[in-house]
């Protein structure tokens, strides 16, 4: 991914970091913004005018605004200096969506910090204010056109507060990545039929089977399989009813059985099926060339399957 964050000294490129970071002067760069350059040019013009007309007050106010620029520089630097940053988990997205990359930003100082923002070559964050002692969230969005595991690369934390005349920034590269699932195929197609079993029967798999026992509730379990009676009787803990396959064939989402032939189209189809099967509460397994995920249900199972699709073809 092209990364045109803000510039940094070539002999001090950002390292990939994982831990919390405190911004110190060594990390911070500061330069005038284009607006600051115009401001400087204007002051220069006013100075020349003051000289020509010999106007003492014009000198005084020109110098006053020049001093203001210098003071603003210190304020801009102070606005970032001492900021504490740490990465926040990145939620996976589907290809074509935008991933949000976020840092937690802590303001340990006694003064408010204003107008803090992240900038990436391909994404720009909204400015955030932090009250003294407050910890907030700095984020930017990145378009994710392709599936896979992507590192966002370098980005900058910057601020032009208070006057917009100077920009203070630091360039960071965090040890994080974005998992991009394949974009699900837009249309729903019946689940694959294997060995003559009708799709209709498969869709009910796991329901007509025999009751096999209870296990602890996991997020993503379909509500109709929660043992409500047990929950009402007991201590409020939710349990999920387990059914044994009972000789019925499991639902396998298989690379071989997709109607499409193209690799990406196949992955998209499989992603669609995984989503549909998960939404329907079916237990399903995934079979890819060289990889097989045993049938299961639940959020983490869905994620495991989608991740396998996302990273299909990567070097192991």
């Amino acid at each position, binding site marked *: 991914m092209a990364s045109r964050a803000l510039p940094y000294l070539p002999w001090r490129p950002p390292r990939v970091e994982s831990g919390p970071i405190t911004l110190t002067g060594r990390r911070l760069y500061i330069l005038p913004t284009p607006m600051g350059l115009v401001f400087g040019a*204007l002051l220069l013009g006013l100075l020349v005018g003051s*000289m*020509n007309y010999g106007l*003492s*007050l014009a000198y005084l106010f020109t*110098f006053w605004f020049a001093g*203001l620029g210098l003071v603003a520089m*210190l304020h801009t630097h102070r606005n970032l200096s001492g900021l504490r940053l740490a990465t926040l988990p990145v939620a996976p997205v589907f290809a074509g969506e935008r991933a949000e990359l976020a840092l937690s930003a802590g303001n340990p100082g006694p003064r408010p910090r204003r107008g803090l923002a992240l900038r990436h070559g391909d994404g720009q964050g909204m400015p955030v204010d932090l009250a003294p002692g407050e910890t907030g969230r700095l984020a930017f969005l990145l378009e994710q056109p392709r599936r896979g595991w992507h590192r966002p690369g370098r980005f900058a934390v910057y601020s032009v507060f*208070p006057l*917009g005349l100077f920009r203070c920034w630091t360039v960071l590269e965090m040890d994080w990545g974005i998992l991009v699932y394949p974009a699900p195929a837009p249309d729903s197609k019946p689940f694959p039929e294997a060995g003559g079993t009708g799709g209709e029967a498969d869709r009910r798999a796991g329901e007509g089977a025999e009751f096999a026992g209870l296990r602890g509730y996991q997020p993503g379990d379909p509500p109709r399989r929660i043992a409500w009676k047990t929950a009402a009787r007991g201590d409020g803990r939710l349990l999920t009813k387990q059914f044994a396959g009972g000789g019925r064939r499991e639902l396998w989402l298989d690379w071989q059985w997709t109607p499409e032939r193209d690799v990406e189209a196949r992955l998209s189809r499989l992603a669609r099926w995984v989503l549909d099967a998960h939404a329907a509460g079916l237990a399903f397994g995934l079979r890819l060339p060289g990889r097989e995920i045993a049938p299961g249900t639940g959020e983490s199972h869905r994620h495991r399957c989608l991740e396998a699709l996302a990273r299909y073809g990567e070097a192991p």
Partner: protein
Amino acid sequence: MPGSPGPLWGGTLNPLLLQRFWLVVPLGLVLLPHAWHLPAWISLAWLGFAGLSLRGAARRQPPLNHWLKWLATLGGVGGVLLGYGSVLGPGGGVALLAFLSGAKLLELDTTRDRAGLLFVTLFLLVAHFLEDQALFTAGWMALAGTVLVAAFVALETPPGQLAARSRPNLILAGQLMLQALPLALLLFVLFPRIQGPLWGLPQQKTAASGLAEQMSPGDISRLILSDELAFRAEFPAAQPQSRDLYWRGPVLWDFDGRGWYRARPVEPASPQGQGLGEPLNYTITLEPHHQRWLFLLGYPARLPDQPVSSLGPDLQWQARDPVHQRLRYQVSSHPAYRLDPVLEATHRTRALALPPGGNRRARELALDLAVAGGGDAAIVERALSHFRQEKFFYTLSPPPLGESAVDEFLFDTRRGFCEHYAGAFVFLMRAAGVPARVVTGYQGGEFNPYGRHWIVRGRDAHAWAEVWLPQLGWTRVDPTAAVAPERVEQGVNAALPAGERLDIPLPVAGDWLRALDLGWDLVNSRWNQWVLGYNHDRQRRFLASLAPFLATLQGMVGLLTALLALGLLVLAALLFQRRRPALDPAARAYARFCARLARLGLPRGGAEGPTDYARRAAAARPDLAEPIATVTRLYLAARYGAAEPAQVEALTAAVQRFRPGGPPQP
């Protein structure tokens, strides 16, 4: 302003309107002082634009058509061209920019537009000093500048947050301005000033003020009533008497039957004479009057190099260029002098010339004065007696005079002021065969005891006569003083009849209004001298008085760089310092108590609780056991009990009393 909203702070305000507001208000504040000298149509157009802009924002209207803006711009350029003749000079340029800043209010859609407008506002702020550099203007512009800085902060504030942020932004702007002020003063004092303009001053306004090269009836009374400041004068040594201060200005040689004027230069070019007695040193700060007169007392001993000037044979002193900027010069001159012991023939002819006819009665009176004999000095004395003995009145509103002005004044109306008396007296002298001329200038002035300087205003304008007497040369005669001695003793107001007094406070001792007036005059005088008059020469002199090295370019740049760096470091240290958490009063009092014990060699251990500490301290100093126990008990009560103010006060008082001195007791 139309469409101005009610709640500026808080409330649910249209963010777009508020954003507009933060652009219109600083621009309006900066333009308000401009309105005094800008054509009214520009001010009105600006108000119209501002109203349209705010209304558009309030109703969330789409921006105006492009051709409309172009039409407004063209109209503005045309109007300014018609009014000023140019859009490039300072006058026309500022006027056009003021107009266009209004038109720009209709087009503020991008951040770039808004930033551009703020830069224009900044430019207009500084450009106003072309017109006016008074102290009040400086204060106003400092205020407008602070609002402008707040507008820059507002530019970086999301519009949705502006309502909540307006007040913090203003406070922040104030802090920034205050922090920038020391740097500004450093630059102001040490930035090397240059001598003279870079590319030449453009045409200045030449609305001359003050004395003119002619004296027609009514000229001086207009000046007396105008009451504007002419100059200030400082005498470093003893203060002279008001009646001796005849500030010499234009000398008028020629009479056309109605007024006195100066028809042509007087030859030769330099005065023939000598000063008598000790010269007087003084400094004059002359207000710009756009003419070339410079003022002095008597006969010069030493004239300043700057400004370039010339002194005529009649002691009329003129600068080479009109005085467009406040001018400060130092003069040394002799109040007593002898000028032209021998009168040149051309001078004599000119000083005796009168128009051929008219003013018959005056000529007859002059003959009467002359035939009595006794020499020219006796003629002068008899003429002055005539003014003293006949019923003449000093008034600023004399009845109008007709064709034979001198006759009517001397025999019919007998009411007038200095220009009438001086003019009539010189007429009489010439008619009696005594060479005479009119001198105009200022007489007296007001002494400011706070600044120890003299304030000379328009109301001190005066005209007197000079007659040439054998051996003595040109001698001053003030016929006004013969009629109204108060005029030269106490100023024009004392000489005027009660109904005519000028609206100025009379010199009454202890009058606080007058004290305020004089105090303000002092502030303005210092402002003019030290701030506005801080030019190349003054900077060199001031820095040389600190250290000679500083008056060089290297010295200035070196010190400026060093001090700026130091200033920024100090500022950075102040800005970046970690503020220690504020202690509550009880903890503060206890900390003071611990510090006092520590001075006795009993510092509190890092992990030592107050009770343990008290026990250890009391064991070491049994003589202090009781106060230590009291303070510790009160501290524990205030800190960990219900913290009532009374307890905290008791603790503070106990610590206050705890002042152990001397070495540890054995």
